[in-house]
Every structure is written in structure tokens, then in C-alpha cells.
């Protein structure tokens, strides 16, 4: 399963984004996989895609690509895990969405994160300290 971060999701929905073509190419290479996204990423995506047409496209792509919502159930324990992860990186000021991706990656060993953020490759780790598997090479 591929967990999508904000930047590739926004890039897919905005043809004028500097990474739109890259994101399309990556989407093609990952087409056989199951995709997932978390609510924090959608919140960020809506900040960066404020216009109605952009949000229509976001909604349509989530539906057409069968992007699943994660975590599957809304449990308070997930929040505490996210807060605990954030507390490990006070100097790097990660966002809530970054923490959600790292925690979800720690919960499912098969999950790969599709992101263009350098920190997932250089700095951030799963809650148990292991590397977060990436879905695509660095751009």
C-alpha cells in the first residue's frame, strides 16, 4: 500500500505545480498499488488547493484512484502516538501530517510513503527507529 503525502497529492491536482509531471510519472509507475491518505494530508492539500475546481479534482482523484482513508478507525490512541512522535523531533518542527505518516508507516510494515519531502529520507524514522520505506526515489 502507498500512503500519499500532501506534496504529490497537490502536484497531481494542479497542472501548474512544478512537480505535476513528476507526480504523474510516479503515479503511472505505482498504478498497480493500492493508495491511501490520512485526514491531516487532506487538510493540508485543501490549504494548497483553495479553488473550487482544484478541490473538485482532488475529490475526483481520491474517488477514481480508490484512495483509502487511514487510519481505518478513529481511535484516540492514534493521536497519542502522533504526539509522542512529534516530541522526538523538537528541533525539526515536523507538522502533524508528517507525524501521521511516520506513525502509520510504523503500524504497517508493508506500507510505503510517497512524498517529496527530504526529511522523510534524511531525518525522520518510524516510532521504533527504523527507516520509513519510500514509494519513489528522491526528485
Amino acid at each position, binding site marked *: 500500500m502507498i500512503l500519499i503525502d500532501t*506534496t504529490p497529492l*497537490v502536484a497531481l491536482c494542479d497542472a501548474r505545480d512544478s512537480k505535476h509531471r513528476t507526480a504523474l510519472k510516479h503515479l503511472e509507475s505505482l498504478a498497480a498499488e493500492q493508495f491511501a491518505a490520512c485526514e491531516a494530508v487532506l487538510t493540508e492539500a485543501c490549504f494548497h488547493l483553495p479553488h473550487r475546481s482544484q478541490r473538485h479534482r482532488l475529490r475526483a482523484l481520491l474517488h477514481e484512484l480508490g484512495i483509502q482513508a487511514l487510519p481505518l478507525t478513529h481511535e484516540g490512541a492514534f493521536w497519542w502516538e502522533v504526539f509522542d512522535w512529534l516530541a522526538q523531533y523538537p528541533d525539526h518542527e515536523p507538522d502533524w501530517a508528517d507525524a501521521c505518516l511516520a506513525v502509520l508507516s510504523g503500524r504497517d510494515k508493508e506500507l510505503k510513503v510517497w512524498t*517529496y519531502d527530504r526529511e522523510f529520507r534524511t531525518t525522520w524514522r518510524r516510532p521504533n527507529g527504523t527507516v520509513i520505506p519510500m514509494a519513489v526515489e528522491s526528485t
Partner: protein
Amino acid sequence: MNSRLVNVRLDAERLRKAQTLRDRGVALSDVLREAIDERFAALRRSGSPPDVRTIVRRVFEQYPDPPDLPLRDYALHDRRAARRAIRRKLRPARA
């Protein structure tokens, strides 16, 4: 969450297993959801992948941007710039 209730019939053996799982604190609804996701993923893997370029092109044709849509005035792929932009957007609402 928009969801629908689904009833599943179980034979005696599966009922016993389900009861054991429940006794150990496992939510049966989660078991069913995970099983559906796994089968769905396997189905996708066994078939040909969807033509994602066509999907994206169709979505852009269906929901085009208006011609006067302004360009984003910050670098989305610069995390500090993106964060500053979000803070800028939040500031007036809190004032």
C-alpha cells in the same frame, strides 16, 4: 463517517473463532474491513493496472481551472514557505 451496516452469516466453526477473537479484544468489524482491503488489493495486483493518465486527463477535462485563476504565490515544495503560507492564511481568522 459515511458507512453502511453489512450482515455476515457465519457457520458454527467461524462463530467460535469470532467469539474467541472478540474475547481477546479484537473488533470483528476491523477484521472484516481489513479482509476486504486485502482482497481488494490482491484483485488490483492480479489485474492490469488502471490507466491513470487517462483518469487524470478526464478529471482535468471535467473540472478545468477558470482562466483567471491566480498562481500560487509561494513555493509549495519548500516546507518553510508552505508553512508560512498556511500561517498567513490562519492569521486573519484569529485576529
